[in-house]
C-alpha cells in the first residue's frame, strides 16, 4: 500500500503545527488543506473544525503533525505522540523536515499502535497549488446522468475537497483569534466586495427583465398569434426564429435563482457575453448606417438592383427560348415554358413597383432592429433577401416539380420497357408480362417523355443554379448569426487569460528522487484545448442538427427534390 499525501505548496515553509485536512474515503490518500500552528487549545481546534465542517460539507479533521526544523527540538517526538492521543485518529501522520534535505520525511502511526509500520519510500508527496486547484474545473465535466458509475475518481475527490473548503481559507492570517493557520491567502478582498455589490444590484434588474420577458412570452403565446398561417410564416422567417432564440437566452440569463452547477454558470456567462457583444456590434452598425444618408442611398439602390435582376432573368429566358448553347430542344414545350416564366417576371416587376414608395421607410425601421443586436439586423436582411428573390424561388419550384415528375415517369416506363414492374408489397422489381396495348402505350409515352426531358432538365438546371446562389447567400448570413449566437466567448477568454480555470487534467513532475526519502511530485494543471473549449461550451442553437452530406444534397438536386435554406432539410446553413 502506498500512502499519498496532497500537500499545498504554500505550507512548505510554514512553522510547525497540526496538519488539517481530510482522508479520502476508501483510499489511503490524505489531502492536507492547512496547518494550525502552535500554540493552540485542542478543544478550540476541534470546535473550529466542527464549525468549518458545518459551513462546507467537507469532513475536515486533524491528519497529524507537521514539524518544521527550528532550534528548540527537545522532546518534540514524545510531544507529537501525545498529540496523537489528544486527537484520536485511526491513522496519524508525522511529517517533518530536516535542515539539510529538501524532501520531507513522513511517519504513519497506525492506531492501535502495536501494528505500526513505517517505510520511507512508500509515501508520495504531491505538491499542489491550492489556489489553482480551488479555482479550477476538471474536464470532462462528469455527467450526473451516467448511471452505474462508481465513486468519482481520486483526483476528482481531491479537487472537490479543495474547492469546497473555501471557508477554511477565508480566515486571514492577520486577524487575531485563538488559532493561527497557514494556507492560501486570497488577497484583494476589495475586488470581491465590488463583485458582491454588483451581485446585489443585479438581482432586482434580473427580476425586472424576467417580468418583462414573461409578459412578452405571454403576448407571443396568445392564440391570435398562433393561427396556422402566422405560425407557418414565423417558422419560416429567420428574424422570428432569431427573436425566439434571443428570448430563450434572456430567460436563461435573467433566471432569478443563481447558477448552481459549473456548466449552468458558464452557459449563463457565455450567453450574457455574446448578448452584450451582439448589442454593441448592432449599435456600431446603426451608428454607421444612419449617418450621411447611407440609408436613403441604399433604398434608392435596392430597387434598381431588383429591377436589373429581373431584366437579367428576362434575357436569360429569351436565351433559353432560342437554341441555348447550341442545344436543340423541343420548340413547342420551350415556347410554353418560356412564356410562362416571362409572365411571372412581369408580375414580379409590377409588384416591385407597388412596393417602391415604402421601401425606404421599411429599411429605416428595419435598421432600428439592429439596436436589439447585429444578429437581428442580419436575419432581417436574410428575410428581405428571401422576399426579394421570391420569383426565383417560384421558378425553381416549378422547374423542380416538372423535372421530378418527368424523371419518375421515365423510371417506371423504363421498367415497362424492359418488361419489369415495381412490386410495391415486396419492395423489389419483378418480371411481369404486359399486354400488347400496355406495351404500346407505354412505349409511346416513354418516347415522348424521353424526347421532352432535355428541355425540362435545362430549365430546371438554370433555375436551380439561381436558387443555389440565393441559398448560399442566405446560408452565409445564417452562419454568421449562428456564430454570434453560439460562440462561447467567455469560456474562451477564461481559457486564454487563466488557463488553470479550465483544466483537462493534471500532469506530474518528479521533484526529488533522493533514494530513501519519500517521492515528491509537483502537480500542475493541464489546460483544456481550445477546440474542446468551443465544443464543450458553445450554446446549442438550431443549426446543431447533423447536416446531411454534400452527396445527399447532390442526390436531391438530381432527382429534383426541393432544397430549403431554413428548415432541417438544407445543408447550406452550416
Amino acid at each position: 500500500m502506498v500512502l499519498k499525501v496532497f500537500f499545498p505548496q504554500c505550507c512548505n515553509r510554514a512553522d510547525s503545527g497540526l496538519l488539517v485536512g481530510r482522508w479520502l474515503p476508501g483510499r489511503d490518500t490524505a489531502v492536507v488543506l492547512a496547518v494550525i500552528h502552535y500554540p493552540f487549545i485542542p478543544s478550540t481546534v476541534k470546535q473550529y473544525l466542527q464549525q468549518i465542517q458545518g459551513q462546507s460539507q467537507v469532513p475536515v479533521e486533524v491528519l497529524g503533525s507537521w514539524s518544521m526544523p527550528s532550534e528548540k527540538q527537545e522532546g518534540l517526538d514524545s510531544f507529537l505522540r501525545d498529540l496523537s492521543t489528544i486527537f484520536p485518529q485511526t491513522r496519524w501522520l508525522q511529517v517533518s523536515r530536516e535542515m539539510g534535505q529538501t524532501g520531507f520525511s513522513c511517519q504513519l502511526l497506525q492506531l492501535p499502535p502495536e501494528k505500526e509500520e513505517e517505510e520511507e519510500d512508500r509515501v508520495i508527496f504531491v505538491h499542489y497549488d491550492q489556489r489553482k486547484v480551488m479555482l479550477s474545473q476538471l474536464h470532462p465535466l462528469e455527467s450526473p446522468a451516467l448511471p452505474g458509475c462508481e465513486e468519482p475518481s481520486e483526483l476528482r475527490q481531491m479537487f472537490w475537497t479543495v474547492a469546497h473548503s473555501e471557508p477554511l481559507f477565508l480566515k486571514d492570517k492577520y486577524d487575531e483569534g485563538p488559532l493561527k493557520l497557514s494556507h492560501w491567502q486570497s488577497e484583494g478582498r476589495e475586488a470581491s466586495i465590488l463583485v458582491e455589490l454588483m451581485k446585489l444590484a443585479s438581482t432586482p434588474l434580473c427580476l425586472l427583465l424576467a417580468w418583462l420577458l414573461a409578459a412578452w412570452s405571454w403576448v407571443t403565446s396568445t392564440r391570435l398569434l398562433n393561427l396556422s398561417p402566422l405560425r407557418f410564416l414565423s417558422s419560416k422567417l429567420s428574424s422570428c426564429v432569431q427573436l425566439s432564440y434571443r428570448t430563450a437566452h434572456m430567460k436563461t440569463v435573467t433566471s432569478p435563482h443563481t447558477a448552481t452547477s459549473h456548466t449552468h454558470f458558464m452557459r449563463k456567462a457565455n450567453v450574457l457575453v455574446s448578448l452584450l457583444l451582439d448589442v454593441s456590434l448592432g449599435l456600431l452598425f446603426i451608428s454607421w448606417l444612419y449617418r450621411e444618408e447611407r440609408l436613403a442611398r441604399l433604398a434608392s439602390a435596392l430597387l434598381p438592383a431588383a429591377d436589373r435582376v429581373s431584366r437579367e432573368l428576362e434575357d436569360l429566358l429569351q436565351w433559353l427560348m432560342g437554341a441555348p448553347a447550341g442545344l436543340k430542344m423541343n420548340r413547342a414545350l420551350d415556347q410554353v415554358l418560356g412564356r410562362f416564366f416571362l409572365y411571372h417576371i412581369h408580375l414580379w416587376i409590377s409588384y416591385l413597383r407597388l412596393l417602391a414608395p415604402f421601401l425606404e421607410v421599411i429599411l429605416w425601421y428595419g435598421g432600428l432592429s439592429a439596436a436589439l443586436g447585429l444578429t437581428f439586423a442580419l436575419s432581417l436582411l436574410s428575410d428581405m433577401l428571401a422576399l426579394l428573390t421570391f420569383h426565383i424561388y417560384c421558378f425553381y419550384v416549378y422547374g423542380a416539380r416538372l423535372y421530378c415528375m418527368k424523371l419518375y415517369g421515365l423510371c417506371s416506363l423504363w421498367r415497362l420497357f424492359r418488361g419489369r414492374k415495381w412490386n410495391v408489397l415486396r419492395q423489389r422489381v419483378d418480371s411481369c408480362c404486359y399486354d400488347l396495348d400496355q406495351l404500346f402505350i407505354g412505349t409511346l409515352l416513354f418516347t415522348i417523355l424521353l424526347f421532352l426531358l432535355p428541355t425540362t432538365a435545362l430549365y430546371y438546371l438554370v433555375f436551380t443554379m439561381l436558387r443555389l446562389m440565393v441559398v448560399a447567400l442566405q446560408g452565409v448570413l445564417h452562419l454568421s448569426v449562428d456564430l454570434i449566437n453560439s460562440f462561447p466567448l467567455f469560456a474562451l477568454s477564461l481559457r486564454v487569460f487563466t488557463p488553470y480555470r479550465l483544466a483537462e487534467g493534471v500532469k506530474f513532475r518528479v521533484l526529488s528522487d533522493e533514494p530513501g526519502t519519500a517521492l515528491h511530485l509537483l502537480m500542475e494543471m493541464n489546460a483544456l484545448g481550445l477546440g474542446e473549449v468551443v465544443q464543450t461550451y458553445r450554446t446549442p442553437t438550431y443549426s446543431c442538427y447533423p447536416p446531411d452530406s454534400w452527396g445527399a444534397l447532390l442526390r436531391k438536386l438530381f432527382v429534383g427534390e426541393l432544397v430549403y435554406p431554413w428548415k432541417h432539410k438544407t445543408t447550406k446553413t452550416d
Partner: protein
Amino acid sequence: MGPDIAPGPAVPWRKVLWERQPFPDNYVDERFLEELRRNEGIRQYRYWAVVKEAVLVGQQLSCVAIFITLWLYMEQGLLSPEALLWTSLIVGLLGYGLHNALRPQLGSDRKPRTHLADLQSAAIFLSFTFGFSPVLKTLTESVSTDTVYAMSALMLLAHLVSFPYAHPSPTGSLSLNAALFASVCLASRLPGALHTFAMLSCALLMFALWPCLLQSIRDHAPGPSAWLCVGVCLGGVGGLGSRWPGGAVLLALALVSVILLCPLLLVKLQRHKDNIQGPWDEAEIHEDLCKVPY
C-alpha cells in the same frame, strides 16, 4: 493410409469414402477416370432442318427491311398514307381472320381472348396513336436527322437481337418496345401527322401482330410456314431493291449467310467438338419450371 504405406491385400478398391480401405490416400486405381465420357448427348444436326429454323431469323430480318422500305416510300412521298392505312387495315383483318380460324385448335389451357377484348385493344391503339401523332411529329424536329437514324438503327438492332426466335408468340417486351421506339423515331421524320399515324399502325401490325400469326401458322403447318418465311425474305429483298439496290444486295448477302452459310458452318464444325463430361458436371434442370415464375 499414408502415401508411404504399400498397397495392402488384394481386396478390390471401391470408390467409396465411408469405409476405410487399405490403400494410400493418393492411390490411383486403374478404374480412375472410368466415368469420363466425351461428347455425349450431342445431337447431330441435319443441314436442312437447321436451315428451316434459320429461315425464321431471315424473315424477321427482312420484316425490318420491309418496314424500312415502307418508310422510304412514305418519306419520298411515293406512297400516300391513306393507301398504306387501307392496305394495313385489310391485311390486319385478313390476318385476324386467319388467326381466329387457327385459334381453337391451339392450346386450350388458358381461355381465349374474346373478340370484344380484341376490339377494345384495337380501339386503344388507334385512338392513342391518332391522338399522339401530332405530338410525335413535332417530337424530334429539333434533333438532327442522323441522330434519329442512328438511334432507330440501334433500336432495330436491339429488336433483332432480343427477339425470341424460339417461340415468338408472346413477343419479348424488350424487342417489341425497341421496335416501336425505332418506328416512332422514324415516323416523326415524316412530313405529316397522318403519315406518322399510318407508319405507327403499320409498325404495330408488323412487329406486334405478325409474329403471333406466324407462330400459330408454324404450330399447324410447319412446311408452308417455312415457305411463307422464304416469301417474306424475297419480298423484303425485292422491296428494298426497288428503292435502294445497294441495300438490297447487302440484305440478300445477309440473308444468304444467315440462312445457308451459318447452318453449313454449324454442321461442318460438329466434328471438331470435344467436351468432357463426368459425374462432376452440374446437372441441368430439364423440366420447364414455368409454373414457377423465374
